[in-house]
């Protein structure tokens, strides 16, 4: 039996001096290992969460508001941002950090509208993380931007798990996706305090049921704040712009 731990496994090659005239060649090192439980109770994304907290502190110190915009690919995030930047031009200094797996197409679409724009190409990753966003926050706001739109990678599942340190999440849902998306992908819609229903101009052609969609949304997130708009026709945009202007203290 091993005398260090009493584990019952023979420590090999013991070397003792015995009260007789020859020695037995063994030593006291034992080469087996001891199992033990190391209790950690850490959040799995704690490294990202710590970085997110730093971003949040930075935003608060610098009087900047950041919103994390999440939706499925093709729900109209970039188009809404284009129109939003045009409308906000002058009234609120803005910046955009936009994420895609590949290409800087979105950044190019958003440039020239009075806002600093930075593209993050995530390549294999399906979401933005706090570190990458944190690195860009100071430079993107260097010329005085007070409102930062973080356009996340088009994906309804993964980005909702990664806190970027934003003030809050805004989920977008287009009429073309069907009214039951909130029920199918409840994680995001239960976390985002604001939901924007986009492409409302198409609702009538799609037999899209607004009442049903609102019911699904309120089912997974009672009290959710809702915008219904079309960036293309401008319907509902006034209320959205007023809301954004209200986020930034003049």
């Amino acid at each position, binding site marked *: 039996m091993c005398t*260090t731990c009493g584990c019952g496994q023979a420590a090999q090659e013991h070397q003792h001096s015995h009260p007789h005239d020859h020695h037995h060649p063994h030593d006291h090192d*034992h080469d087996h*290992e*001891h*199992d*033990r*439980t*190391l*209790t*950690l*109770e*850490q*959040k*799995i*994304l*704690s*490294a*990202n969460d710590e970085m997110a907290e730093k971003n949040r502190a930075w935003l608060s110190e610098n009087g900047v508001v950041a919103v994390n915009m999440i939706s499925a690919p093709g729900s109209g995030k970039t188009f809404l941002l284009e129109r939003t930047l045009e409308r906000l031009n002058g009234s609120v200094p803005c910046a955009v950090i936009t994420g895609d797996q590949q290409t800087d197409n979105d950044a190019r679409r958003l440039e020239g509208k009075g806002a600093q724009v930075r593209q993050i190409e995530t390549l294999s*990753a*399906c*979401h933005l993380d706090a570190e990458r966003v944190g690195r860009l926050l100071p430079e993107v706001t260097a010329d005085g931007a007070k409102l930062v739109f973080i356009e996340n990678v088009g*994906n309804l*599942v*993964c980005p*909702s*798990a*990664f806190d970027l340190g934003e003030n809050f999440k805004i989920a977008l849902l287009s009429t073309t996706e069907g009214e039951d998306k909130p*029920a199918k992908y*409840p*994680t995001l819609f*239960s976390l985002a305090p604001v939901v924007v229903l986009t492409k409302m101009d198409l609702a009538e052609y799609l037999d899209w049921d607004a009442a049903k969609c609102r019911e699904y949304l*309120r*089912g*997974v997130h*009672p*009290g959710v704040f809702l915008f219904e708009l079309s960036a293309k026709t401008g319907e509902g945009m006034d209320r959205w712009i007023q809301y954004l202007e209200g986020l930034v203290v003049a």
Partner: protein
Amino acid sequence: MHELSIATALVEQVERAMQQESASRVTKVNVRVGTLSGVDKEALEMAFPLASEDGCCSTADLVVELVQARIECNACGKASEPESLFFACEYCGAVDVNVISGRELMLQSLEIQDNE
């Protein structure tokens, strides 16, 4: 794939803990995953060996404990476990509820071996 990012973060976290403890080998990684965390148990189990590669986690088993969603009603104060993701109090039907568990994504503990 989202679980691969989670598994990679998990493996890095285990490696940091192993270094701090100067442990030589990890045999079991115990995690708790809430049903509202957006992480799928099977996908995480599949991603874990991929994220481990040749690192210290390649010899370890991942053990996932699922944590059921629990809500507390702000109207009647009772706690219940909703069956679907439409949260309503099981007792009074109110939808004004707080999620008290189910969002967990925790590295709970490791079974490790020390060289002596």
